[in-house]
C-alpha cells in the first residue's frame, strides 16, 4: 500500500488507514536508526528543502536527520537567512523554490494555513512542520506512535491534554488524530486557554485538571509560555504550576500504568515538576526518538514509497 497524497498538511485530511500506514512504516524505519551505519539509499537523488520561517530546533533537526538517514539531499532555509527578511512574499518564495525542482518542502510557519498556501502552488510535496496554531502533524503522529508502543493500541484510551490548548497546534493535531483512532481525548487548563468550540473536534473539556487526569492512560502536558501573561491568559507561573502543573500527586490520579508526554521543550517546575519529567512514567525521550522514525516514514511515503513496494 502506498500513500496517495501529495502533501501532509494536517491530521484532518488523513484517514484511519493512512495514519496506520504511516505509523507502521515508522516502526520499520526505527530500526535503521539503531544500525551501526544509520543510512539507507532510499531517497538518493531526492531534494528535501527544510523551510523554517519560525525558529525551531528539535523539529528541524529531526527532519534533517530523517532526510539524511534516507540519503536525500537536504538543504535548509530559515527566517533569518531567507529573503523573507528582505521583504519577499511567500508567493515569490514559492515560485523561486518551484524553479529549483525540490521533491519535498518541509515548512514551518508562524501563520496558520501557510502550508496549504504553498501546497496549492508547488508540484513538490509539502510537509507541514507546524503552522501557527493550526496543525503539527508529524508531532501528533510521533505522539501516537509512542502511545501505541506503550499501550499496544490507540483505541479506547483516555488521553488528557493539559495546558494552553488555544495556542497549541500539537493539541489540535492530537485531538484530530487520537479521536480518529478511537481514543477519548479530555482537555484541561485555565479557561482562558481553552478555545471556544473545541468540543466540536470530538473531545471533551474537563472542569478541572484533576478531573482530566483521573483514570487517564496518557497525560500530555503542553508548554506554557511566559508571554501569555501579557495577553491576560494567566496570572503567574507560580500559580500556574500549583493549579495546572503536573506533580506526583496528580500523577497518582491517573491509571497505574499512565505514561507522561510532553512535546518539548519543557519548562521544569512550571507545567511539569522535575521529578515527574524525569520519573518512571515519562516517555518524553521516546517521543524524540520516534520523531525521527515518523519523519523518515513521511518522507518515504510522500515521495512514492510503499510498505511493500514490490507487491503494490
Amino acid at each position, binding site marked *: 500500500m502506498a500513500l496517495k497524497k501529495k502533501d501532509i498538511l494536517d491530521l484532518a485530511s488523513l484517514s484511519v488507514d493512512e495514519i496506520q500506514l504511516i505509523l507502521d512504516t515508522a516502526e520499520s524505519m526505527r530500526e535503521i536508526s539503531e544500525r551501526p551505519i544509520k543510512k539507507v539509499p532510499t531517497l538518493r537523488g531526492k531534494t528535501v528543502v527544510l523551510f523554517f520561517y519560525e525558529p525551531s530546533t528539535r523539529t528541524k533537526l529531526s527532519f534533517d536527520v530523517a532526510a539524511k538517514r534516507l540519503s536525500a539531499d537536504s538543504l535548509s532555509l530559515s527566517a533569518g537567512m531567507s529573503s523573507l527578511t528582505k521583504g519577499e*512574499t511567500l508567493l515569490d518564495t514559492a515560485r523561486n523554490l518551484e524553479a529549483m525542482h525540490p521533491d519535498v518542502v518541509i515548512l514551518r510557519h508562524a501563520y496558520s494555513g501557510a502550508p496549504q498556501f504553498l501546497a496549492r502552488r508547488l508540484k513538490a510535496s509539502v510537509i507541514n512542520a507546524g503552522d501557527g496554531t493550526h496543525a503539527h502533524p508529524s508531532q501528533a503522529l510521533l505522539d501516537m506512535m509512542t502511545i501505541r508502543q506503550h499501550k499496544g493500541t490507540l483505541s479506547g484510551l483516555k488521553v488528557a491534554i493539559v495546558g494552553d490548548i488555544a495556542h497549541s497546534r500539537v493539541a*489540535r493535531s492530537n485531538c484530530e488524530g487520537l479521536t480518529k483512532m478511537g481514543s477519548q481525548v479530555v482537555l484541561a487548563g485555565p479557561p482562558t486557554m481553552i478555545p*471556544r468550540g473545541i468540543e466540536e473536534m470530538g473531545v471533551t473539556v474537563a472542569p478541572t485538571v484533576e478531573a482530566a487526569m483521573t483514570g487517564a492512560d496518557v497525560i500530555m502536558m503542553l508548554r506554557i509560555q511566559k508571554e501569555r501573561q501579557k495577553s491576560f491568559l494567566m496570572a503567574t507561573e507560580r500559580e500556574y504550576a500549583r493549579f495546572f502543573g503536573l506533580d506526583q500527586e496528580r500523577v497518582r490520579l491517573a491509571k497505574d500504568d499512565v505514561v507522561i508526554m510532553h512535546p518539548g521543550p519543557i519548562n521544569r517546575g512550571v507545567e511539569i515538576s522535575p521529578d515527574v519529567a524525569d520519573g518512571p512514567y515519562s516517555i518524553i525521550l521516546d517521543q524524540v526518538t520516534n520523531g525521527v522514525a515518523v519523519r523518515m516514514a513521511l518522507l518515504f511515503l510522500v515521495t512514492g514509497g510503499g510498505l511493500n513496494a514490490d507487491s503494490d
Partner: protein
Amino acid sequence: MPILIKGGRVIDPGHMDEIGDVLIEKGRIRAVQPAGTLEAPGADCRIVDAAGLWVTPGLIDMHVHFREPGQEYKETILTGSQAAAAGGFTAVCTMPNTNPVNDDPAITALILEKAARAGLVRVYPVAAVSVGSRGEQLCEFGELKAAGAIGVSDDGLPVMNAQLMRRALEYAAGFGLRVISHAEDMQLAEGGVMNEGPRATRMGLAGIPNACESVMVMRDIALSALTGVPVHIAHVSTRESVDAIRRAKSDGIPVTAETAPHYFTLTDEAVEGYNTHAKMNPPLRSEADREAICRGLADGTLDAIATDHAPHSAMEKEVEFDRAANGVIGLETALPLGLKLVADHVLTASDLITRMALAPARILGLPTGIRVGQAADLTLIDPLKEWIVTIRDIKSKSKNTPFENWTLKGKAVMTLVEGQIKLDGLQRENR
C-alpha cells in the same frame, strides 16, 4: 436628449409600484404616468423599452472605499465610479481611510474634483472624526462640511475613546453632519482574523467574538441617548448588534444602521481553505448571525444595505491568511445579492429598494424618489437576468470578490444620473 422609459415596473417605495412610463428631460423627471400614456416629445428622444424591468430611484451605497488619494493601485475615484455605475448605483459615500486620511478640507475637495472629472456617479465624501483617525483630536467639522463632506467617521478604525465619541456626536450635530460608527472594540479584537468559534479553533486562526462589535454598538447607542444626536452604525454583522439596535429604536433612540451583502449572504464557512477573499472586518459570522441580519433587514432594524466596497490588489490577498488585508469589493454584486433576498421572500421588492436607495438618502439627507421635477437619478433593473461573476468583467480595479463564478440573478441594466446615462446595458437591443 430626452429619455422616455416605457412600460417598466416603477418602484418608488411608499409612493408607487406600478407599470408606468417615465419621461426625463433636461436632467429632471418631467412626467410619470400609467404605461402607454406618454408620447416621445420629439424625434431626438431616446425611447427605452422597459418591459420586464424595474425602474427605481438611483441606488445609493453609503459605504465605499475608493482608495484615492494614496492607494490608486487598488482603486481610483474613476474606476470606483465605473464599478458603482455598473452596479446600478447613482451615488456613493467614500470613507475617509485614504492616505492621507480625509481629515482636511483640501482632501475632501480633491475627492470631489476627481469625482467631477470622472463624471459618472455622485460622490459624497465622508471625512474623518479625528485627525489622522488617530482618536486624539477632533477634525474641523465645519471646514469639512463647507468643503463638501456629508458625514464623519473614522471607518476602518473605531473611535475607541468614549469621550471623543460623545463630543464628536455633539460637535457634528452643530454642523448637521451624520456620525458613522465603525463599531469594534480593538482590544477585544486584538490579533483576531476571523469569526471566533469552532471553525476558527479548528483552523488555528485567532477569533473575533461577536461581542467585539456589540459592546461598541451598545456604547454608541448609549451615547446617542445621552446626547440626543443620531448615530449611524456601519457594517452590522452580529445578532447581538441587531437586537441592541432594535431595542434602541423601540426606545426612540435615533440610531440607524447598515449591513453589507456579504453578511446576509455568507457565513464563516467561506473562510475554509484559508480563503483570503472571505477575510473582512467585521468578519463573516455564523449562520445564526446571518439569519438575524436577514430578520433585521426585513423588519427595518437595519435601515440600509451598503457594500463596504473595499478593493485590495492580489499583493494584499495572495498571502498568508493572517497577513491578508481585510475587505471585499461589492459594488457590482450588491444588487443581485439583494435581489436574492427578494427571491427568498426575506424582503419585498419595495423593501429592497428602500434599503438600497430611500433609507441611505433619508439618513444622509439626500433627495430620492421618482417624482415629477426631481433630478432623474434612476436605476433600471432586469430582475431575471442570469449572469456569472467573471473577474475580467469586473470594472473595479481590484478583483477581490468571494463571489467569483457565482451565478447571480438580476442586474442593473441602466444607470441614470441627472438624466445622463452612465451605464447602458440596453443599447444594442433598444436603440
